[in-house]
């Protein structure tokens, strides 16, 4: 929710950290349809999330044995974007998302990034095509609101930039080993 005009997790924002000599403003997050009090309809947010196929896509069988072995470097490539908890703080702080709610939003792009740059995944091209949409990554204006809002400290704007870069190159730069 919005506390004093900033998107924060209510469960992690303590009264002792706020200035209680002034009123504390508590509002519902912006950009999503308001249902009641502080409750918004999160469906458009999860709709975008589902559209980027947030699951491992792999048609081949692992080379030897049962595991898809990944090196430390390969795992580290997308480590930052695995931290997302789908709280919608980033997407509902994005001024482009506020305008008409059609933009995929930072959270969906972060979760696409998590699989696009995963060496075990084979669906990167499909996700890049989805985000190359009219309402995809090109609507990002790099205002960094999302990066500032993220309670998990994910470098959201950087992740979006990496996806833009991957679309321009036609492939994601995943470490070979």
């Amino acid at each position, binding site marked *: 929710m919005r506390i004093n005009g900033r998107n924060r997790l209510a469960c992690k924002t303590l009264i002792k950290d706020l200035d209680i000599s002034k009123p504390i403003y508590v509002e519902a997050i912006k950009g999503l349809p308001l249902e009641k009090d502080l409750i918004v309809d999160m469906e458009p947010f999860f709709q975008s999330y*589902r*559209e980027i*196929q947030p699951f491992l896509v792999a048609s081949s069988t692992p080379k030897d044995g049962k595991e898809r072995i990944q090196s430390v470097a390969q795992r580290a490539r997308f480590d930052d974007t695995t931290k997302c908890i789908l709280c919608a703080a980033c997407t509902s702080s994005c001024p*482009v998302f506020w*305008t*008409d709610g059609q933009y995929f939003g930072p959270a969906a792009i972060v979760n696409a990034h998590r699989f696009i740059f995963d060496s075990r995944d084979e669906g990167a*091209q*499909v996700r890049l*095509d*989805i985000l*190359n*949409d*009219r309402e*995809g990554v*090109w*609507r990002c204006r790099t205002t960094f609101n999302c990066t500032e809002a993220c309670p998990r400290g994910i470098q959201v704007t950087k992740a979006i930039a990496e996806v*833009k870069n991957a*679309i*321009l190159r036609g492939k994601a730069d995943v470490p070979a080993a």
Partner: protein
Amino acid sequence: MTTETIQAPRSAAAARRGRFNLEKWGWIYMRVSGVVLIVLVFGHLYVNLFSGEGVRAIDFAFVAGKWASPFWIVWDTLLLWLALIHGANGMRTLVNDYARGRLRPLLQGALLVSTVVLLTLGTLVIYTFDPCLDPSVAGDLGAVCTAR
């Protein structure tokens, strides 16, 4: 435990690959033209406002003198096209953000028309410019023109 039905993932977007993507090329255009415009705009400002006598030197003869050189004709043509399309594309993204319904195509149409008209007019001025347009002009330019 019940089995949840999993929705089929969206795959329609994948078929759209290979088509001209205005949003992508618009984004690339903004970055590339932006870098070139830094040089063009500051070069233009320096030559017109700082070098020599500075801003006081700007008159009809100053423009005539500049456009006597193909270098400045190319410079100004590039400046006109890159800056105008850069600005118009920026306005287009604003319209896409804030204009709803019928207002959107209306504003976008107005933007397109004004951009085309300004580009045509500006290019015409640069390439059909006649330094001897004003016979009353004095100084070096007047001397050049009367000598013709």
